[in-house]
Every structure is written in C-alpha cells, then in structure tokens.
C-alpha cells in the first residue's frame, strides 16, 4: 500500500516544520521541575542536559548568554526549576526546552539553602563577634573586590576621592554574578590577603535580584572572607538584601558607597581637628610662658634683684606678644615662632632668680616680715636680715653699713 492519488507526501523537513509551528504556537513559556542528567557544558559556552523525572525526560539547552547569569553551577543529579520555551531543533527533529532561567529546586531552593547555610556557619562560629577584626580608622590602601565595570566600583572610587584622596583604591576585577562568580570571589579575596598591602577590603556589588546576589551566599565565599587576615567590609546590594557574606564579614555596609564612607575618614573633619589641636597647642604654650613670667615676677618682688626694671617689666609684655604671635603662627611660620620663643625663653632664664643666685648673687630681706631690701636706707646697724643664696638662706645681723664710694650713713 502506497500513498493514494490525493495523499500529499511530506518531506521530513516539512513535518518537522509543522510540528515546530504547532508546538511553539501552542505551548507558552513554562516552568519545568526536574532532575538534571547528561549535563554537558560545551566549549561553545552552551549547556546541554536532560531534565527527567521518574517517568520521562526532556532534552534541554541553555545558551551561553543565558547561563552566564546563573548563580549556581548545574550538575547531574541536581533538582532544578527551569523556565523556558519548548522548541524544535529541526536538524535533529527533536523538541527540547530552551531554558532561559534556572534555579535549584526542592532542598536546593534558594531561601532554604540560605537558611541552612546560615545556620551551619553560625553553628561553626563564623559569625561570632570574637572573630571580627577592627576596620582601620585610616587605611592607606583600600582594595575593592567587585566587577570592574559595575556601579559599585565607581561609587567606591567617587566616595574615597571626595572624602580621603590620600587613600589608594585598588580594584580587584572579579565576576560578581553568574556561575563563575563564587570561585572568582574566593580567588580575589585570597589574592588580596596574600598581597598584604591592603589595609581593608570591600567585597560587594550593587543591588540586584536575589539570584544576582547569590554568589555572596556561597559557602566557599563565606569561608574565604572568614579566613582573610585583611579586614573585610561586605557591601552587597541595597539595604534589604542580606547575604551570608554580610554575616561573616568584619563589617557590613548597606551599599558600596556606605562601605567607602565606613572605611575612609572625612578629610574636612580631620582638617578641623588638626586646626583645633594647633590652636590649643599655641594657647597652651602661651599659658606656660605666662606662668613662667609670673613666677619671675613673684621672685622679683620677694627677693628684689636689681634686675634692670625695664627688662623685667618689658618681659611679661613681650611674652604675651610672642605667645600671641605663636598662636597666630600658621604651620609655615613655625621656625620664626620658635626663634622668638627661644629668645623669650633665654630672657626668662636670665631673669629667673635661681639663675642669678647661681651666679653668686644674693637676695636680702628684712626679718621677720621678709620685705625686700632694695637700698641701704631700708636697714640699720643691728637689723636682722635674711640672705638667700642659691642653695639656701642664712639669717644675719647688720654690723655696719657703707654707701657707694664709701660714704657712711
């Protein structure tokens, strides 16, 4: 029996084309749950595998540009949820699922996996505060482990430049999503740590869907962050997105910009602090000098040295003036301020009664009130006087008095 007169004989390709048209027109994009088998990640980058359950199987393909966004590495035996369209591959006359999105299913479900890993690492103590390293207040080098083209790296560079340009930003180009992200993150974190020149590292990326952020929920990544000797600030996505990395890092920032603000100080604030210290320094030295000149004054009235009055009186004034200048002295005028202060100091030293006494002079005061003796007219023969020398004092009685040029009085 052969085809009748009215029977149309189809070519194979025509049948396939019809099947293709019918199938693709009638089946919408759909979610399929199944277990992966015969998984091949072809050198072209495309993934070929079979989805199966206990009764049937479905050929599947996930093209490179789709699977680059996967946040996990599919493998045989894994239960997955795949979303895609049924299509017909005409050369093979084969229908298959063209997978556009895929996620672990069942126990591999993201939220469950997240909770499970979180519990496990918490039980191991990886999140304990005892392991948290301090973030340096003023890092010289900030490493940024993230995509070299994302918003995160630009945000960090912008904030560091604005706040503290003296810090060096070192970008560590790293894939932050897709199948290769976890391994890339692990390698970059370890590399920065081994390099050893970074004072702190920011590990993160801008916001995205939970799938986009998934690499930061990877156990290996968590362990790499935990193992790093360099303090790690985790900066993944926006406020609401918590990741395992956030828990294990030494500090967590809501966004990469926040992380940058957290690791570098504000230059303006520091400049204000330095100016204030400079002011206090000048005020303090002024007060020290004034205190010393007060002391000179006190000695002077107590012991009455015959210091040239103009020197001593001018001194307090000069100290004030010099200290005032020191106060005004900007850092560029330190040398001249120092010189002036040195001069004031040597005058103070000269005026210091201790120095005068050390040179062999004596101070004389009347007993018992100890009022200073400035002229011979203040004592009479027999007056009791106290004579102060460098190493002590002696009390004496005046035996005779002689004026200058031997004039007796």
């Amino acid at each position: 029996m052969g085809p009748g007169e009215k029977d149309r004989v189809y070519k194979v390709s025509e049948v396939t084309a019809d099947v293709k048209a019918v199938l693709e027109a009638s089946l919408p994009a759909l979610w399929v749950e199944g277990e992966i088998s015969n998984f091949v990640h072809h050198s072209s980058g495309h993934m070929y595998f079979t989805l199966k359950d206990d009764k049937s199987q479905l050929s599947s393909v996930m093209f490179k540009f789709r699977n680059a966004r996967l946040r996990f590495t599919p493998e045989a035996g894994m239960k997955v949820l795949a979303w895609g369209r049924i299509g017909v591959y005409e050369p093979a006359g084969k229908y298959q699922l063209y997978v556009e999105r895929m996620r672990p299913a069942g126990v591999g479900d993201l939220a469950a996996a997240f909770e499970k890993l979180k519990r496990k690492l918490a039980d191991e103590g990886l999140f304990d505060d005892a392991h948290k390293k301090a973030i340096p207040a003023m890092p010289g080098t900030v490493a940024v482990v993230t995509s070299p083209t994302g918003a995160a790296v630009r945000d960090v560079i912008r904030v560091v430049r604005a706040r503290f340009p003296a810090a060096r930003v070192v970008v560590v180009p790293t894939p932050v999503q897709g199948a290769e992200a976890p391994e890339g993150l692990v390698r970059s974190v370890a590399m920065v740590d081994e390099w050893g020149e970074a004072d702190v590292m920011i590990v993160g990326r801008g916001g995205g869907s939970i799938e986009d952020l998934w690499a930061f929920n990877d156990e290996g990544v968590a362990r790499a962050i935990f193992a790093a000797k360099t303090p790690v600030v985790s900066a993944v996505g926006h406020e609401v997105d918590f990741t395992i990395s956030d828990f294990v890092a030494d500090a967590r920032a809501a966004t990469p910009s926040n992380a940058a603000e957290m690791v570098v100080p504000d230059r303006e604030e520091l400049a204000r602090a330095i100016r204030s210290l400079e002011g206090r320094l000048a005020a303090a030295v002024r007060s020290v000098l004034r205190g010393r000149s007060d002391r000179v004054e006190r000695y002077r009235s107590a012991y009455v040295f015959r210091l040239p009055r103009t020197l001593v009186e001018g001194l307090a004034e000069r100290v004030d003036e010099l200290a005032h200048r020191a106060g005004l002295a900007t850092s560029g005028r330190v040398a001249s301020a120092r010189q002036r202060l040195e001069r004031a100091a040597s005058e103070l030293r000269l005026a210091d009664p201790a120095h005068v006494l050390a040179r062999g002079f004596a101070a004389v005061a009347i007993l018992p009130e100890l009022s200073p003796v400035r002229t011979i007219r203040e004592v009479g023969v027999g007056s009791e006087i106290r004579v102060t020398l460098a190493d002590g004092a002696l009390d004496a009685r005046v035996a005779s008095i002689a004026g200058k040029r031997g004039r007796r009085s």
Partner: protein
Amino acid sequence: MSKVPEFEGDLKKLEELVRKLEEDELSLEESLAAFEEGMKLAKKLAKTLEKAQERVMKLTEGRDGGVSLERFDDDDGEDD
C-alpha cells in the same frame, strides 16, 4: 607607599603634646620643644590631607602566579 597609617600615629602624638602642654607637665625647655614638635606635626598632618589623590590601581593575577598591580582605567574621567 602607604603613608597614611603614619598619620594616625602622628595625630596621637600631637594630641599627647597638647595634653602635656595644657597640663603644664614640662619644663620651659621641654614646653618649647613640645610646641615646636607639635607645630611640625600639625603641618605634616595638614600636608598629608592635602596630598594629591592617589591613582586608582588594579590588582590581578600575574602570569608567574604572583600578582600584578597596574593602573586602573576608570573611564569616568573626572579627576575632582
């Protein structure tokens, strides 16, 4: 290269000098020396803050298994 950690130490030193001077713990000579050192530190600290911005670098794995550090070409182009 990374001079900044020194900054923290210098700042602490300056604070300590100010404290000593304010509490009048020092002799006249020491006070003057403290003042001079403090002014120098303040100048140095202010200078560090004004220091030109560091280049953004890029750390990658080198061919020899080590690392390679080179300029990162951030294309935003705005330098200030």
